[in-house]
Structure formats: C-alpha cells, structure tokens
C-alpha cells in the first residue's frame, strides 16, 4: 500500500481557506504544495509522491550529515532509516496539514517533521547497544568545562560537590535519574523517553523541574548563575 493510499485528502479543515481567512499570503510554491495535497483527484497522489521524495532526500541528507557520529554498524541501516522516517513524516504532514498557518514556507514546515522522525531514529540507533546510566553518576564528567585559572579549577571541584549533594538531597528519585542521565551522562532525551516509556516533553519537564530545584539549592549555598556569563555556544 502506498503512502498516498494510506492518507486520503482532508476533510473539515481547509488549509487554503484558513490561509485566506487569516489573510496570510502564501508563496507560490507553498500554495502549490497545499493545492496538490488537498486535491481529491490524481494531483493528490502525485503530490504525496512528491512530498515523499522531498522528505526522503531530506532524511538521507540528515542521516549522512550525522554519519560520523553514529556507530559503524549503523552505516548499513541509514537508507532504511531514511525511508522509514520519510514515510512516517509524510503521514504526519498529511494528518497535520490543517494546522499549517503559512508562517513559514511549506517545505520548511514539512522538513520539521522529517527531522523529528530521522533524529529520533538516529538517536535510538546510536544508543541501541549502550547502557543508559542513571543510578551511578560519574560526577567528574562535569569537570570537563574549561577552567581559565587555578582558582576556577578549585571552584569547579567545590561546585561539583555542591551539585552532587543537592541532587541527592533535593530531587525526587525520578528527577535524579533523569538529571544524571541527561546532564551528567549526555543521554539524549529521546533515548531516555524510549527507555522510560515516556515522551520527550515529559522527560524535559522533569529535567526542568529538577533544574529549578537545584538552582534554588545552589543559590542558597552561594552558587548563583550570573545572567550573561557562562554562555555555551
């Protein structure tokens, strides 16, 4: 069954009408995509095929871009990952097309969905055989920032001790696990979400709450983050 057969034209939400109502001027290319994908004639199937081709190229491009950061065994799977990501993204684009507001070009909007699909797949692939460490934090990993002076080096050691104590004392077990995995061990949030049967948004929310508690705790110990300093590019 083709992707075009899986998803038929949309019903109630007429994206072109929404655009007209909102007086948003679509560029001709974006309008062309919408007209094709909303068509209930042969233009629809061609539009879906074109969309798949576009998103497949995009997925392949992204997979190749990140090839160097992937384990060697993943190289053989990149084509399959790109095809799967493109197919899944086409389904998502067609399902969500009624929400397209024309605030960006259609292709930018559509690329967004294939990036989420292919990124998540590549992260999973990258971590497939790796253990996600949550309960055995290697705190010294935090010391890999670049101290500019000997005093900085001493302060970093003291700060890591304060962080370790605050994490143990102030966070819930779930917040602690998520904080250690993401911040100390650099586990991607998508991978953690998979392992914990959760979502990126839910895991990030727990991380955000953990950081808020840590901020208060560390400030009370004299470790305040100064706005505009320590920016990480």
């Amino acid at each position, binding site marked *: 069954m083709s992707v075009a057969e899986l998803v038929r034209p949309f019903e109630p939400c007429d994206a072109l009408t929404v655009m007209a109502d909102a007086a948003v001027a679509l560029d001709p290319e974006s309008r062309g995509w919408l007209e094709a994908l909303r068509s209930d004639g042969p233009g629809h199937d061609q539009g879906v095929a074109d969309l798949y081709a576009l998103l497949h*190229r*995009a997925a392949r*491009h*992204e997979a190749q*871009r990140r090839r160097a950061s992937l384990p060697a065994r993943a190289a053989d799977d990149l084509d399959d990952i790109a095809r799967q990501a493109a197919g899944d993204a086409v389904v998502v684009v067609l399902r969500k097309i009624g929400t397209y507001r024309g*605030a*960006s*070009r259609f*292709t*930018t*909007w559509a*690329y*967004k969905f294939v*990036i*989420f699909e292919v*990124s998540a797949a590549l*992260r999973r692939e990258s971590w497939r055989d790796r253990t996600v460490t949550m309960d055995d934090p290697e705190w010294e990993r*935090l010391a890999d*920032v*670049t*101290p*500019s*002076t000997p005093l*900085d*080096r001493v*302060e*970093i050691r003291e*700060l*890591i001790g304060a*962080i370790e104590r605050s994490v143990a004392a102030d966070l819930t077990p779930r917040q602690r696990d998520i904080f250690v995995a*993401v*911040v100390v061990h*650099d586990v*991607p*949030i*998508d991978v953690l979400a998979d392992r914990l049967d959760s979502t*990126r*948004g839910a895991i*990030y*929310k727990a991380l*955000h709450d953990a*950081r808020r508690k*840590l*901020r208060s705790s*560390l400030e009370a110990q004299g*470790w*305040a*983050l*100064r*706005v505009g*300093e*320590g*920016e*990480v590019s």
Partner: protein
Amino acid sequence: MNGPQELLRRVLGPPGEDAGCERSIEVLDEYVEHELAGRPAATLYPDVASHLAACPDCREDRDALADLVRGRNLG
C-alpha cells in the same frame, strides 16, 4: 570563559521562561526561517530561545532543520 559559571549554565540551563519541547517544536520552522533571514528570532521568541539552549534534543533538531533549509534544493 568563567569555568564555574559555564558549569552552572550547563547544569541549570539558562534563566528565564522556557517554552518547553511541545511549544518550541510547534514554532521551530518559523524560528529557523527568522534566524536564517537574519531576523532576531531569540528576541521574537525568547522562551523558545531559552528552551533551545536548555534542551539538547530540540537544539540538535533546530540545527538539523536550519541545515536543511539552507540547502533547500537537495541533490
């Protein structure tokens, strides 16, 4: 670069409102187009900018989307 401040920022994320993953993903296409057009995306969407600084997955997706849009006519 001040080492302790750099570490604090890494551990705590940036201060300020954080849009969260869902809201950031919702407007990521607009955000990236503003950035690539040289418009002040971080001023237009400060809560999204904070989120992108704090969330490694969303930041990586932003970078990937920007790379795609820059090379829109992929071979």
